[in-house]
């Protein structure tokens, strides 16, 4: 995807002017109903995470062996799990992890990727070629090995699951962003900055990076959903949140699969929550992409 002059302009147009943000939001909602639905889903998720303490009728840890595996009922709206813990309450609390990991990992992955992609495009030549080959090497590695290496080098914990998920995203984002940055690099304002005697770091950070926002945002939203899914699949390595703390991914593993047939609510609702979150972020990301590309604008 080449970034054209118009794209860059329109990004600025869509991005900054504060006075018009309400208008812009309204326009976005009117012109991109799917994107607006996505945005709503994200908003709900954020609100739930922020107000979990008020929304959840139970503590996430309270066990009730008398109510093990009860189907959804008046006391437990979405049923209970194998320890009699309230599925709804655990989902409400679990939204926090989903958001932190989703946002954290995708932000780090996309941002570092964008930085590398932009710098690689800016310096070009041999540096670019070497950086790209390094990215190739990184892409060839399966997630599980990288995740294990993160555990080995950095240890476990929430922040490290974020790294483990972010690292494989970096080369992917770097690739996509680089292709846009190549076009930005040829923009006269970058030359102007060079002619003004600015340092390379300044040019990359201040002048180029903000202008690859469109691919960056698309990658970011696409990664967000993936990160939530990946977090769950890495918990057996000790990464991320561990039982008995509530997290969507954890709720979907182990016992939920075990009891998929006899107590399907245990996995169904958190699975649905993840799906909706991924849906929300992707719908929003897609539409944001359309909204940022002037050539795709219909109105």
């Amino acid at each position, binding site marked *: 995807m080449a970034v054209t002059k118009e794209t860059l302009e329109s990004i600025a147009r869509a991005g900054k002017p504060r006075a018009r943000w309400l208008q812009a939001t309204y326009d976005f909602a009117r012109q991109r109903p799917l994107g607006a639905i996505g945005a709503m889903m994200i908003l709900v998720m954020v609100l739930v995470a922020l107000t979990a303490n008020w929304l959840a009728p139970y503590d996430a840890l309270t066990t009730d062996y008398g109510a093990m595996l009860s189907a959804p009922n008046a006391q437990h709206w979405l049923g209970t799990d194998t320890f009699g813990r309230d599925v709804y309450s655990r989902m409400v609390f679990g939204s926090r992890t989903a958001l932190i990991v989703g946002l954290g990992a995708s932000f780090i992955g996309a941002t570092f990727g964008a930085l590398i992609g932009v710098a690689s495009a800016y310096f070009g030549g041999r540096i670019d070629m070497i950086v790209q080959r390094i990215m190739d090497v990184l892409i060839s590695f399966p997630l599980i090995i990288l995740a294990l290496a993160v555990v080995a080098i950095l240890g476990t914990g929430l922040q490290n699951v974020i790294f483990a998920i972010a690292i494989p995203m970096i080369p992917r984002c770097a690739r996509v962003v680089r292709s846009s940055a190549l076009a930005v690099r040829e923009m006269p304002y970058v030359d102007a900055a060079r002619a003004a005697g600015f340092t390379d770091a300044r040019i990359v950070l201040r002048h180029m990076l903000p202008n690859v926002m469109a691919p960056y945002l698309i990658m970011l939203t696409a990664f967000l959903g993936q990160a939530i899914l990946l977090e769950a699949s890495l918990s057996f390595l000790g990464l991320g949140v561990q039982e008995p703390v509530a997290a969507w991914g954890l709720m979907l593993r182990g016992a939920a699969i075990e009891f998929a047939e006899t107590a399907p609510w245990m996995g169904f609702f958190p699975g649905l929550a993840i799906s909706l979150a991924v849906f929300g972020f992707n719908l929003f990301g897609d539409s944001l992409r359309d909204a940022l590309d002037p050539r795709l604008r*219909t109105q």
Partner: protein
Amino acid sequence: MAKLLEVKNLQTQFLTSAGVVRAVDGVSYDVDEGETVALVGESGCGKSVSALSIMRLVAEPAGRIVGGEIVFKGRDLLKLSEEEMRDVRGRDIAMIFQEPMTSLNPVLTIGRQLTEGLEIHLGMGPAAASARAIELLGLVGIPDPARRLAQYPHQFSGGMRQRMMVAMALGCNPALILADEPTTALDVTIQAQVLELLQDLSRRLGVAMLIITHNLGVVARYADRVNVMYAGRIIERGTAAEIYADPRHPYTLGLLRSVPRLDEPIRAKLDPIEGQPPDLSRLPPGCAFAPRCAYRVERCTEVPPLAACGAAGHMSACWVSASLAKEPVA
């Protein structure tokens, strides 16, 4: 001569987040058979959109033709079905686009792009179509045309690409060619080559041409009649000689004065038209040029000027056009 094309009160608008852009706002002009008519005006005044409206190629759904008639050979093009219109495009009316770099498909060979129109409109077989394509390339002065058919646009220079566009337009012997800034992207020497070619062809084959440009020099050299556009309207019309010798609209006058000319002594200062072109989505109630006009009177900011016809079809839309008659051009 008979009227080939008559555009009557054409209105084309774009819906944008900033509001309705009246890109073409009640434009009327006509082209006779075999004649070369120019449409001039500054960037963004609606020249291209009016040509695209004739082809009914305005980018939908944002852009819409909201009113007027486009009578071509007695038929109103706006009333044709999409299928009928497809037959008109390329067959009766051909268009040469502004950007030769991007208007050719980079992944198809020159031959493919030249022959497909012939195959569709004239029902030629592949062999006949290639023979014709070679002939066309030769006609527009591309050396070694047979070998060129297998090449791709990026292997052509800018001038060659523009000539290729001309060849494509000529393919089905259209009655009218809409040439939208056919040379803006080219430098002077190539520009001269292409324009000479077009003029020559139009004379020899009797094709009518609508040349769109903002280069007044080009107009002076090639056009029979001139329409000057400003902010979506025609503000002055007449034969080329009249317009240059006796401009009756302050904008035309300003335009002629602001460009340095090789045939004049060097001036100490140029005389620019002060101010900025108007925003087409927020046009003032009166004359759109009024805010920049040195001859402005009170009425100009309140009432849009009527088109006043002078001698021999020289029309201008200005309340004070009469008083301009004495102004020297430079």
